[in-house]
């Protein structure tokens, strides 16, 4: 039973799912102290549904993973059927009912890293593709489907998604850090053409992104059936969690948007959702 989760959610919530997560990870050596000291509990865990931990590690590698899975399967004893507690809807991070989910990708297409040939790890970071999701509420979806770009969606795209998330979690842009955010829809033969200009600046321009947007949006009554959008611009700077192998100086950052296919993985919450209310507010 493969499961994937963002540990922020579980480390910060006092609900059945958070309690269950803490019960599991504290069986791993040193993790009780890790939670107390707010160090990371990230890693891989193999457990039974009662929460008994069979194995855990935090090193990547396919061979190691296969070995661990084989070891556990040889000794695994499934508990008799229990009942998982109800999810706490107050902190539910599922997309709101009737909303549109859009896949978001980030890639650095041009940067000057200096003359040295990158090692394998550096190359992986430089070539990496960032992934995230954008949520558009039912009401916002209907507005876009009828040819208007809501300010709330433009701001959400700017604050949470026009960012360098190719090497991990960047800090989101605060509302006052939006210098410019103009996005508009114009009729196009098949739907609407989206164009826009966005400028974002944090600190004394220590982190900065100036981008243009272009895209094609199609709709069927109140539904969005196509959301193909590209943002391209000059970025500089990094956050505390994205400084490793960050390009020095200015670089070209491209962000791509495409409607997400149906399925469980598409319900992965956007990185900026620490609680859905804040993400969907402005």
């Amino acid at each position: 039973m493969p499961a994937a989760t963002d540990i922020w959610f579980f480390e910060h919530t006092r609900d059945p799912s958070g309690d269950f997560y803490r019960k599991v990870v504290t069986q791993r050596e040193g993790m009780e102290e890790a939670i107390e000291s707010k160090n990371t509990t990230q890693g891989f865990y193999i457990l039974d549904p009662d929460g008994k931990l069979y194995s855990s590690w935090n090193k990547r590698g396919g061979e190691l993973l296969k070995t661990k899975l084989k070891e556990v399967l040889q000794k695994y004893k499934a508990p008799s059927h229990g009942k998982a507690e109800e999810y706490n809807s107050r902190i539910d991070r599922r997309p709101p009912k009737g909303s549109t989910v859009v896949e978001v990708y980030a890639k650095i297409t041009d940067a000057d890293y200096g003359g040295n040939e990158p090692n394998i790890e550096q190359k992986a970071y430089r070539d990496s593709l960032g992934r995230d999701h954008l949520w558009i509420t039912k009401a916002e979806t209907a507005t876009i489907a009828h040819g208007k770009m809501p300010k709330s969606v433009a701001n959400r795209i700017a604050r949470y998604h026009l960012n360098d998330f190719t090497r991990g979690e960047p800090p989101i842009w605060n509302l006052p850090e939006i210098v410019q955010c103009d996005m508009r829809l114009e009729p196009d033969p098949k739907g609407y053409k989206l164009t826009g200009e966005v400028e974002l600046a944090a600190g004394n321009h220590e982190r900065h992104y100036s981008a243009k947007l272009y895209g094609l949006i199609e709709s069927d009554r109140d539904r969005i059936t196509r959301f193909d959008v590209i943002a391209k611009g000059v970025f500089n700077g990094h956050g505390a969690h994205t400084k490793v192998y960050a390009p020095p100086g200015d670089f070209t950052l491209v962000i791509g948007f495409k409607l997400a296919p149906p399925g469980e993985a598409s319900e992965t919450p956007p990185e900026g959702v620490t609680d859905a209310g804040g993400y969907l507010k402005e």
Partner: protein
Amino acid sequence: MIARHSLQIIILIFAAAVCRQDGGKGGTAKSDDLGPQEFKKLFDKIIPKAQERWQKIPWRIDLLEAREVSYQSKKPIFLWAMNGHPLGCT
């Protein structure tokens, strides 16, 4: 002659300043050429055409749902837990 040289120097300084605004240390970083053709080229380059192998795994993103299915299937839970969602922004 001196005036002509001065003009050339001023033009060069101005051109350098314009390049700096647009490109800075990255040299060729650009944002001013995004039209229909560039859009199509970048869209084809950035957006993956097919699912990658890890995406074909039927991940559960709700831990309590994963527990229910684990009880029913009698199979253990393999949990991938990260700072930042493993299926999203990491």
